[in-house]
């Protein structure tokens, strides 16, 4: 049975997190982390502030946060991205605005990236009320590689020191600089959504108009995972 792709439509804002066994298209705004087992597409109108992980990550819109692809990360022309890219295959199409590091390799490979699974959760999110027995927490969270992640986290400080400084110009560096890391992606291997959706769009418009909504007072304030944390940490040491 073909599963239908989940969609966050344009005009809708989520302050929270998304996870699960599904494909996801983001056309609206997400303030928070995303972790899906299938394909993730951030369309031209889509804005995501948070770290994302998926089997394949395709960015046409705006992503502020790190992208982890178990298969591939692809940044299209017109996309705006600030963060690190990690995947066995990383493609950045010239014309994309991109600032950050590129790691070509398996997610969780301690030599390549500092993947921290806790980046995908809100530490400050209140636990669901016990109106029903607690649901088994997402079993897809790749339990087998948990040790690998732990090892990764342990080696993170050493990694951070050897990383080249990522403080480039604040406005977009075209992906030409990252061209050496570019791996050509045969079109037939793109996720199906990647082929059918077109990518026009003026992202600036949505950027200025969509502000994060204010939270209702009764909720504990959200604490976003800190983006660019490794860089901040590095500053402390020097």
């Amino acid at each position: 049975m073909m599963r239908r792709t989940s969609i966050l439509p344009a005009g809708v804002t989520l302050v929270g997190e998304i996870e699960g066994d599904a494909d996801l298209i983001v056309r609206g705004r997400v303030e928070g982390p995303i972790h899906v087992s299938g394909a993730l597409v951030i369309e031209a109108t889509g804005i995501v502030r948070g770290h994302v992980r998926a089997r394949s990550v395709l960015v046409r819109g705006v992503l502020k946060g790190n992208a982890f692809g178990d298969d591939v990360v692809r940044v299209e022309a017109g996309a705006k991205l600030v963060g690190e890219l990690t995947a066995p295959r990383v493609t950045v199409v010239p014309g994309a605005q991109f600032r950050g590091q590129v790691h070509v390799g398996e997610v969780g490979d301690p030599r390549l990236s500092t993947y921290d699974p806790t980046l995908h959760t809100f530490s400050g999110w209140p636990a669901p009320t016990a109106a029903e027995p607690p649901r088994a927490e997402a079993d897809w969270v790749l339990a087998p590689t948990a040790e690998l992640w732990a090892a990764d986290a342990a080696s993170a400080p050493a990694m951070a020191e050897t990383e080249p400084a990522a403080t480039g110009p604040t406005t977009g560096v075209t992906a030409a600089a990252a061209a050496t890391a570019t791996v050509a992606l045969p079109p037939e291997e793109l996720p199906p959504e990647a082929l059918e959706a077109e990518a026009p769009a003026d992202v600036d418009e949505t950027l200025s108009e969509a502000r994060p909504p204010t939270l209702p007072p009764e909720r504990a304030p959200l604490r976003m995972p800190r983006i660019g944390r490794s860089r901040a940490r590095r500053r402390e040491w020097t």
Partner: protein
Amino acid sequence: MSIDNVTGYVGPGLVVRGQVSGEGDLVVDGVFEGSLSLRGRVAVGPPGRLRAPVEAHLVSVEGRLEGHVTAGEIVVREGGRLHGDVRAPSVGIEDGGVLLGSVTMDVELPPGLDDSEER
């Protein structure tokens, strides 16, 4: 409710936590927890679980919804369970649907039966 490209969709297997706001329709066949405030329609599909206070123009429940609902129209369809207080000018509970909670609605009683002054 038909699914098209402007309808938000939380598929089975997807878990969304947080606060959703804005304009548009949303179909939940997966799990949503948090709060939901949409200028549009919200449908909880048969496999869907929605645990959140909901504000929307129309709310249709075929799965499970836990939370207070404020809407222009609420329909609990066969197999649907709505656990919470609802407030809407139009509330429908179809045969086989369950609503656990109170319904708040303006009721125009004939003269002499108006109980608003007694309370």
